[in-house]
């Protein structure tokens, strides 16, 4: 099995209302040093290992997991060590 961690964030320049709300709340709590917050999504997929894992994850992101019009995505693969 491979663990795939997919991170989805809004593209640079796209207004992030959730991020702004969180930033304002942090400042209200006294964390004045917080200048920006971006809120995104993390998806963890457990998938069977195979020859085209990366290409298929890429397709999953493009096709369904992210909306490429407003979102960027990155992912990391984590292969479990065989015991």
């Amino acid at each position, binding site marked *: 099995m491979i663990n795939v961690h997919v991170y989805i964030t809004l593209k640079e320049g796209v*207004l992030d209302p959730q991020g702004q709300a969180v930033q304002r709340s942090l400042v209200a709590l006294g964390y004045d040093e917080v200048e920006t917050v971006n809120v995104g999504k993390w998806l963890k997929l457990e998938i069977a290992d195979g020859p085209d894992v990366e290409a298929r994850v890429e397709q999953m992101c493009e096709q369904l997991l992210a909306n490429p*019009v*407003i979102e960027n995505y990155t992912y990391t693969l984590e292969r479990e060590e065989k015991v």
Partner: protein
Amino acid sequence: MKAAVIVFPGSNCDMDMYHALTDFIDAETVDLVPHTAASVAAYDAIFLPGGFSYGDYLRSGAIARFAPVIPSVITEAKKGKPVLGVCNGFQILLEADLLPGAMKRNKHLKYMCRTVDVNVENADTCFTRAYEQGERLRIPIAHGEGNYECDETTYETLKANNRIAFTYASDVNGSIGNIAGITNEAGNVLGMMPHPERAMEKLLGSEDGRRLFTSVYRHWRDTHAVTT
């Protein structure tokens, strides 16, 4: 005119849409077509209602876009048949790439449910021909993700080609250019966040949505005029 109202798991404005089509225009048939249907080729106009298709779990409209019925909706849209998506239906049209752009959470992060002023920006489409250019309508909105986003080039293209059908009279959710509804290039696909199907009766607040359905009907009647 044969009309199809597509029902997704989580659609909740399907019966309002059905009501609008059956009780206010002379449609020959109005069918509630399940999301599993293989084809909508038999219909003259297709309506994607509001709601929360598939619970909007990943992203509004993202999962519905892969419903079995969607390829046929895309095929019929490309043939030029009127396709209307309201609210969640609009979000599905964006995800299916029948319209450009994407939806974000409302600017103030609030779900909004109230009646707003909407301007008719283009009264020259098959959905708006019964309206006056520049007319101001009262139409209800009910959405948390109606903040329409697109890149500058797309926005300029929408403006230049009269593809902005409706705008809000004020900034209600943060949408670029106060966009409330846009069409595709050919003008036969309309996505809009306000709910015309909830504005059919004065008793319930407004009947300004009626003429949208009248427009679609008249368009069909004129393009299918019986020639003897």
